[in-house]
């Protein structure tokens, strides 16, 4: 539960229905839920301890909603993140465009955030190759270009999922000596003096 101390903030980004929630479900609860797709509302937070060598590192994972509706809100989720898992659906070309958008956004706003490019639903490809819309090498080239790690995962079978998060934790661990202040756990409210309500304008 939230009682845990969080070492590294990790944010899941990507177009709706690419499988962000499923990835987190698979990794945290070791399961894949079948049944009608339930899109995430806003975002969900879960803390997950993970063993790295001798150490236990707690990842604070933010599973965001892909819907454009929450785009204006997305900053609060990725701000201060040490890692971003940017997901696209291997069977949906447009989701890769959206992934590019998030990468650009992160490069502009969160230079200390490491990016992990994740092509999801690889089980569908293994079943039927013709479903693949994003070439492995194209994605790999893009990953190299932006200095990101690249994974192809399946939450259904579990392929590569643990590996992905393990890599995130290890990278955090080996970079931790740089001693970046971990994400603040409380906000100094006295500093905030802007209006009572935050109104979200789509166009700003």
């Amino acid at each position, binding site marked *: *539960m*939230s*009682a845990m101390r969080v070492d590294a903030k990790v944010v899941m980004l990507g177009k*709706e229905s690419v499988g962000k*929630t499923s990835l*987190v*479900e698979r990794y*945290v*609860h070791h399961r894949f839920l079948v049944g*009608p797709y*339930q*899109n*995430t*509302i*806003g*975002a*969900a*937070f*879960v803390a997950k301890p993970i063993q790295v060598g001798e150490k236990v590192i707690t990842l604070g994972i933010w*599973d965001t*909603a*892909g*819907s*454009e*509706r*929450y785009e204006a*809100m997305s900053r*609060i989720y990725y701000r201060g993140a040490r890692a971003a898992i940017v997901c696209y659906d291997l069977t949906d070309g447009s989701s890769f465009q959206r992934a590019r958008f998030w990468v650009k956004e992160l490069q502009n706003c969160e230079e200390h955030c490491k990016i992990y490019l994740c092509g999801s639903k690889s089980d569908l490809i293994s079943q039927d190759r013709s479903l693949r819309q994003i070439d492995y090498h194209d994605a790999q080239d893009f990953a190299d270009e932006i200095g990101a790690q690249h994974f192809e995962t399946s939450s259904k079978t579990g392929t590569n999922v643990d590996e992905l998060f393990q890599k995130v934790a290890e990278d955090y661990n080996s970079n931790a000596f740089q001693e970046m202040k971990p994400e603040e*756990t*409380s*906000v100094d*409210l006295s500093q*905030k003096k802007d*209006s*009572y*309500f*935050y*109104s*979200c*304008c*789509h*166009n700003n």
Partner: protein
Amino acid sequence: MEGDSQRASASWENGTLAPGEHLRSDRADSPLPGLVEGTEPGAGQKSAMFVHAQSFEDLTAEAEEEVRREAEINKSGDGEEELKVLVGEKEQHSSDMTSESRTKEEDVTSEAWRSHRKHVFVLSDAGKPIYTRYGTEEALSSTMGVMMALVSVVEAEKNIIRSIQADGCKVVFLTKSPLVLVGVSRTCQSDKELLRELHYIYYQIVSLLTLTQLNNIFKNKQNYDLRRLLAGSEYLTDNLLTRLERDPGLLLSAVTCLPLASSTRDTVSSSLQAAKSKNLVFSILLAGDRLVTLLRKKDQFLHHIDLHLVFNLVGSSSSFREGEGWTPICLPKFNTAGFFHAHISYLEPASELCLILVSTDREDFFNMSDCKKRFMERLSKRSAYPALKEALKSPTYSVEQVGIPELRHFLYKSKSSGLYTSPEFPDVYKSDCEQERLMGLYQDLHSSLHHPTRPLRYVYRCGDTENLLAWVTSGFELYLCFSPLGTKALAVAAVTKLLKWIRKEEDRLFILSPLTY
């Protein structure tokens, strides 16, 4: 029994609802409590839980304004032609009408599509489709174009189109720039009831976007396709429509509570009260669709419509089941301009208990998470927690407990607290179909009690399948359903008995001492 009935009915028939001499302020002793607002069973002791408004009228008041300028088109040439396209002609109930799954793929030219009992469409001022309950928006773009044309034609003459009556079918319009909402119904609901439902749908959309954002979007781009922003939220609207058909709370503009010993509820409430934070405005603890407790910042009230939108959000989505949710939400009855931020989490993974902490600050996640932690720490040390979990096992009660012969079901709303109570549906009304039918009957009665020009104080209706009595005073609203064997005298006598029973049980069924922080 005879005596009882005469005494009770006398005061209605001569129309005086002033409290009789026998009504003393002493709650527990008054034989016929609740004729005056604030003394009825279930009335809060200190203050109202919700916004203190004439809830139902509140919803339709604006529409009533428009009545004065209204233009009712009755079967006028063009309109009818188009209408046939829209609604078909056969009165035929499709078997899947109660199915909750979204019948998106449905062919909009099919008989099945036409024969749905209630269609709801949302479009933009520019006539762009935004939402349809059945079928896809794309397939309906020309139909929606026709609807918009109807609205515009009437508007051009400085009038507002309100409704169209066609054979066995009613079309109701609600213009809420930049949106237009259209309901097409084969039910016998009044225009006013349909309008009330359209308002709910309107607020549902506003709660996702804020009105400010909605206005900005359409100001910048009149032709904007709002479905882009609403993508993935359609099921919220779908579910809200189902709730409107089934949930008495939406009809009564009230919410119902989990029956709970008042000592337990008080401990839960005070634990929640202790877990406060600077920007925390409302703390809501739900057990399924029932309120366990609600705390609010002093002087801030939560409108029941906003609360129902929160219920709908939480109830429709399993996405809050794991971890902690953090989502912007606009509570349109509070303020249509901005977002609150809600921390949503279940107390335990498989639990029905869901805690919603509403903050004004979008950066407040960890503060809210901490509030929840403190609440849980406090609560789990106390015996109230196991007691609360025990109470979850019997979230309702059976009507037999009341001990009134032939009484099958009832709805009782305490007006001053905005809370209602109702037993579980008995076997005769267990099926979805029967439940909706009974709700339809209640809706009818509700319409009569709240008729815009000729409201009734009480109604007694005999039917083949049940007898119904409805009564409204300044303190409460009551709907009773008897078996067809019941008589009017019996029904009238039952009222007193029921009120006494509710009075006796009120500290279990209602939240009598709401807290603030």
